[in-house]
């Protein structure tokens, strides 16, 4: 009885709302999420814990770029950490050996990321389906071996240290996490808007056509090679952007950006964006962001503050089990399911009604 009333009320509110703002769900949801995320520092989270959400923002960029490549173009990549690591190492090497400031090294590392994306994109054009997934998974693992082999240049396990962007002369020590957080949030907003624009543009439609039917789009005269490479390049651009800023915000670039080998905690940067995207909903732009936040809140807050008193392995065990459960329960993603449910709630309207409304609005104007 009560639930019925609530559902009816929500339905009423939503239909009223939806009739007034055209194309509501994605945009309003995005705005709502942005408002909530932007207020996080004032929601009682201690400043020293904000670092988690700074990482979450950067990983969300990676996840969104992964979504463009996989969810939109259909090129399954399991080694997206390659771009993240290349971005981080490029900026760190330039800082370490040439002492350049961050605003010159980051653009250069983005160029490096795009270059790497093109270099691995060209051989990857030949692979399809599971082969592509397995080969892309191999790239970061193959690269990281050289980082250990040439220990003198890359400093092996410890990695290279990088000068943080926000150091005491610019921002006081206690304000540093907040500054980092807002910088990463700004980056996330800008990147996701750009990727959204790309995905909804003509190019984005071509990407989706490659996902749906590669042969068909070829038959329509689309140069699929060019568009696949373009997708790789855009994806590499944002991946390396996230990596470069991650190096500057955390202060180091180490092999863990590529892969965590003997880790107790699977902080694998190839894996987290994918888990996040699957959780949120693949092939959407808002999905990966929602998924990343869900992942980090679950991993760091729920299991550290809400459910306390269990050791780390048990925590990870339950966490991963929950993720498997969520994936099995909602294979299409949580955020997408919610958005689709909301769209279903919207009552179908008669054509006459819409015409009446239009006439009314014309009269008033």
């Amino acid at each position, binding site marked *: 009885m009560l639930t019925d009333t609530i559902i009816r009320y929500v339905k009423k509110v939503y239909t009223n709302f939806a009739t007034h703002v055209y194309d509501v769900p994605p945009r309003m949801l995005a705005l709502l999420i942005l408002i909530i995320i932007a207020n996080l520092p004032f929601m009682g989270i201690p400043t020293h814990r904000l670092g988690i959400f700074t990482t979450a923002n950067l990983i969300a960029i990676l996840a969104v770029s992964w979504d463009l490549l996989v969810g939109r173009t259909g090129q399954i990549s399991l080694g997206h950490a390659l771009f993240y690591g290349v971005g981080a190492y490029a900026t760190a090497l330039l800082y370490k050996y040439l002492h350049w400031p961050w605003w010159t090294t980051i653009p250069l590392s983005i160029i490096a990321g795009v270059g790497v994306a093109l270099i691995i994109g060209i051989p990857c054009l030949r692979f399809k389906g599971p*082969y592509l997934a397995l080969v892309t998974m191999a790239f970061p693992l193959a690269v990281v*071996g050289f980082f250990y*082999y040439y220990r003198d240049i890359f400093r092996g396990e410890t990695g290279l240290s990088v000068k943080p962007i926000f150091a005491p002369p610019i921002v006081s020590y206690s304000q540093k996490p907040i500054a980092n957080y807002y910088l990463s949030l700004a980056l996330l907003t800008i990147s996701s808007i750009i990727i959204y624009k790309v995905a909804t543009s003509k190019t984005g439609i071509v990407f989706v056509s490659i996902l749906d039917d590669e042969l068909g789009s070829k038959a329509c005269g689309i140069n699929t090679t060019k568009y696949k490479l373009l997708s790789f390049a855009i994806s590499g651009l944002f991946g390396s952007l996230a990596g470069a800023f991650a190096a500057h915000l955390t202060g180091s670039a180490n092999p863990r950006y590529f892969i965590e080998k003997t880790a107790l905690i699977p902080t694998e940067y190839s894996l987290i964006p994918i888990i996040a995207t699957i959780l949120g909903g693949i092939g959407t732009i808002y999905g990966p962001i929602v998924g990343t936040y869900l992942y980090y809140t679950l991993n760091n807050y729920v299991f550290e503050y809400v459910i306390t008193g269990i050791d780390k392995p048990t925590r990870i065990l339950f966490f991963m089990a929950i993720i498997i459960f969520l994936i099995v329960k909602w*294979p299409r993603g949580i955020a997408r399911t919610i958005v689709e449910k909301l769209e279903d709630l919207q009552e179908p309207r008669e054509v006459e009604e819409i015409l009446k409304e239009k006439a009314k609005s014309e009269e008033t104007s």
Partner: protein
Amino acid sequence: MLEAIIISGIITGLIYALIALGFTLVYGISGIVNLTHGAFFVVGAYLYGILLNHIPKLIPQDLAYLTPTFAIVFSILLTGIIGSAFYRITLHQLLGEEVSILIASICACIVFHQIIFIAMGSLYAFSFTISPLVRGTIMIINTDVLTGKAVAALISLTSFIILGLYISRTKTGRAMKALSQDLEAAMLMGVSTEKLFMFTAGLSAGIGSLGGILYASTVTYGTASHMWMLGLALSFTVVVLGGLGSIKGSIFGGLILGFTQEAVMRIIPGAGVLQDSIPFIVVILALLIRPKGLFGKRIEME
């Protein structure tokens, strides 16, 4: 030098081929990339190690020499049951969602990793040495080879032959072959896909655990809870080299990988840190020449 590379390459390659066999079998029959295989590689090795310590208490003294055999059989059976059950609970619901299956199975690997970590304690989780099947060394064409390793290679070869016979001679085997050739036609002929997929998942987990046992008993550091990554890396390198879904291909892929690894380790000084990267470099280079592997098809039996 060359003899040493060839002999040890064949032996290592056969073990690698067995590790990859289960992976290729699942892809060939049910068409999914089941990365849980890496977890069963480790679970099998741990179960074997535990059973090796406990079985002598349960069986009469004069049967003590059969302990490794019992341990191998029981760990294969247990892993097979776990693998089959896990497949039915999760992956079977996701059939058709490629990326979701990949991620769910990687998450499952991490779950098994943590279960082992909790069950074994942090001491044994990082390194759990397993005694070799047979001790001592033998000489094969001027090369010293550990007897345990040679026996492991023999076991691997035998299991390939048994599997080949099983698939070509028995009813279930032929049903599996039919499924891999044409799913819908096989269903029309009365093959129960659900049961057969479950059986295949169990079989592949069992074979994976045998691979894990052989691998862990031939290396000095034994097994560790995070080694699912290694098992996965080895098996997918072999499989991609030989062609996904081809049993013949996994033998060739394993041998190629074995030769390359032995050659690099013996020729380049200080290549120890590169050991984990070699499979990936090999696979990238090889795929540039043949993008679908050597025998890239759905399953094929000789």
